[in-house]
């Protein structure tokens, strides 16, 4: 009897096809995987299911009509979502304008003076001038003009990428900052200061609040307000700060907000978001069974949770008001925020908390889906078994495991844990935060689009070092017989099996790799520990003798090793699943459905 197990997940649909003989023995014939079409548990899934069934049956020369039974899983009715919010929002008002970090500034040192347009130099009587060079002035004419004013010109701000060209033609050398995109926004006749560091160093005065206080004669109160300016300039080779005395420094802070966690017993705990991710997760761990989580209204976190509920209600077809957040994973991070008053699109790294949430929907309409499927494929379809039970059954086919067996399903939308004890009882947990959350955080932290963030998550990096070779992040060097295309030169690339993808960023390979690894650890190592301590008999991790990692993220090139390293010292056998000895960590649920 030919039967198929179909596992509809948040991101992939997997099948397992087997021949079940009279004597109960089972011969596995084919497996398949495809992207899930539509939100899981909805009629949209049919397309993907049919596709992957056709494909896997085709590989063994069978047709849909040869199937005698299809089993689909009772999908866990959990849906996850992710968001990120800064803890405080600090706005540098128009009363201060800053700019920094062109690739090639010129000169070195500090220059203080009054901003004057280069075309107005003739009528200017100032002793100390910072000249503003508009793009209609080319480097030769600019240099000749500045030379005429000699000692009075202390520094220059240039729109075009011509700092070195002007500098090389000056008789008296001054620091010059170029590539100032919004040069038309520079206020004239205002006090400005330019700093350019020597090669290999970063600026020291403008990135120091007291340095700014000295230059602009600030009071202690005012000095406090220039901290964001100094902070956003840290690590730069050059910078310009212009301060207009008019208008007070306005600093607007939207409260980060408070999380209220309700447990099933009806008591609640309040956690301020700005206490950071560690404190949030500690409080959550103490809460026990979570009934719902709410954010204070009119705060960052409140708006964030509202937004998530809206998205989740669209996905689950339930009213936003009736949705309860059952789990939350908070991770500390830094995100680049646009600096107000920026002259060239500068960003400042602000402390933020990234949050993944999980809601429990009502039971997904799997029976309805099964009927539709049966009608369309003309094959009997049964809804069989809870997802977690099926996954543990499938995981049991991994060589070297014994009961009680725990699985960690590292998925795209959620991290699930389940333990199957010797009596066949299963305890399961669904946690917020998984592969999608990692992609979002990589993208936000490095200011990259989702697609490239996803690639960074999945493959190692390399730096293109010459026409013919790249150096991988582990130091290995790979040579190419043909020269690489110009788009790769000098870039950090993601190295896939057959192709490379250049990353359009100024971040170094080390920085990107460090970010990727840290985020993966924060999400999956933390969630693995959380899940296991929730499902472990008597809440003791040591009562789980072996853990099998399954799911799409268990295929990752470094996540399973990270989890293993963390759990190994607890004397737990943990590793990536080898479902049926040859499927790797994939296909556990589909296999379980066939075995049932």
């Amino acid at each position, binding site marked *: 009897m030919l039967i198929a197990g179909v596992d509809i997940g948040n991101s992939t649909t997997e099948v397992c096809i087997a021949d079940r003989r009279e004597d109960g023995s089972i011969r596995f014939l084919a497996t398949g995987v495809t992207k899930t079409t539509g939100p899981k548990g909805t009629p949209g899934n049919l397309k993907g299911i049919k596709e992957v069934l056709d494909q896997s049956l085709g590989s063994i020369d069978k047709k849909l009509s040869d199937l005698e039974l299809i089993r689909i899983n009772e999908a866990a009715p959990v849906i996850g979502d992710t968001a990120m919010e800064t803890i405080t929002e600090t706005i540098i008002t128009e009363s201060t304008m800053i700019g920094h970090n062109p690739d090639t500034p010129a000169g070195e040192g500090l220059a203080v003076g009054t901003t004057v347009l280069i075309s107005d130099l003739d009528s200017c009587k100032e002793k100390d001038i910072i000249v503003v060079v508009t793009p209609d002035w080319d480097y030769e004419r600019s240099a000749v003009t500045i030379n005429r004013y000699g000692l009075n010109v202390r520094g220059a701000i240039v729109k075009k990428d011509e*700092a070195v*060209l002007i500098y090389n033609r000056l008789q008296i050398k001054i620091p010059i900052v170029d590539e100032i995109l919004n040069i038309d926004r520079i206020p004239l006749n205002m006090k400005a200061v330019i700093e350019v560091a020597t090669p290999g160093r970063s600026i020291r005065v403008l990135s120091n609040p007291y340095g700014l206080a000295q230059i602009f004669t600030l009071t202690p109160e005012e000095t406090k307000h220039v901290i964001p300016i100094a902070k956003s300039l840290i690590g730069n080779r050059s910078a310009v700060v212009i301060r207009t005395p008019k208008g007070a420094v306005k600093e607007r802070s939207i409260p980060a907000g408070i999380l209220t966690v309700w447990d099933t017993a009806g008591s609640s705990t309040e956690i301020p978001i700005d206490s950071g991710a560690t404190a949030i997760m500690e409080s959550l761990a103490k809460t026990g069974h979570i009934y719902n989580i709410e954010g204070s209204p009119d705060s960052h976190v409140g708006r964030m949770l509202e937004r998530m509920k809206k998205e989740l209600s669209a996905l689950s077809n339930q009213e936003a008001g009736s949705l309860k957040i059952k789990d939350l994973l908070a991770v500390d991070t830094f995100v680049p925020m646009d600096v107000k008053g920026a002259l060239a699109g500068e960003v400042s790294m602000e402390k933020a908390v990234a949050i993944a949430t999980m809601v429990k929907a009502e039971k997904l309409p799997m029976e309805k889906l099964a009927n539709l499927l049966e009608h369309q494929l003309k094959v009997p379809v049964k809804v069989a078994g809870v997802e977690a039970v099926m996954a543990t059954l499938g995981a049991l086919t991994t060589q070297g495991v014994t009961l009680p067996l725990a699985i960690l399903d590292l998925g795209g939308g959620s991290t699930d844990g389940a333990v199957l004890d010797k009596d066949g009882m299963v305890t399961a947990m669904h946690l917020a935060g998984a592969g999608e959350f990692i992609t979002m955080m990589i993208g936000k932290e490095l200011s990259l689009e989702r697609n490239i963030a996803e690639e960074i998550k999945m493959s190692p990096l390399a730096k293109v070092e010459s*026409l013919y070779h790249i150096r991988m992040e582990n130091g290995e060097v790979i040579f190419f017989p043909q020269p690489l295309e110009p*788009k790769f*030169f000098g*870039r950090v690339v993601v190295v896939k099996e057959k192709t490379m993808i250049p990353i359009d960023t100024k971040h170094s390979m080390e920085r990107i790799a460090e970010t990727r690894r840290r985020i993966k650890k924060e999400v999956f190592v933390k969630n693995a520990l959380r899940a296991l301590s929730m499902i472990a008999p008597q809440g003791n991790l040591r009562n789980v003798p072996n853990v099998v990692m399954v799911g799409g993220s268990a295929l990752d090139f470094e996540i399973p090793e990270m989890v293993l390293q963390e759990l190994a010292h607890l004397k737990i056998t943990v590793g990536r699943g080898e479902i049926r000895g040859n499927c790797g960590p994939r296909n556990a649920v589909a296999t379980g459905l066939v075995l049932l």
Partner: protein
Amino acid sequence: MAKPLIMIGVRDADEQVLKELLAGIEEEQVLFEVFTEITLCNEYTLAEDAAMRSGLELGISVYRNKILLQPKKMVQIGPLPLKNLTPRQMGQNAARFVKNKPLIL
């Protein structure tokens, strides 16, 4: 040992084009040397000749208003396939190439 310079071979060069090319290299703070060729050569052999003489292993030819960037290691293959760039950008790219910085494309 050849000096650490980008070598630029010039034949019947458009003055404005050459000037802009040099400005691009100068802005990126890389040294260069210009030589004039009057013997029979085309823009490709001129660029190759420049590449062989460059200590930075990059030669440039400027023939009328046409610029080619020729890495020494690619002499058998041909100049860098760069299109639709201004002479200034070609100069910046030449400098960025020897610094192993991403190019303007």
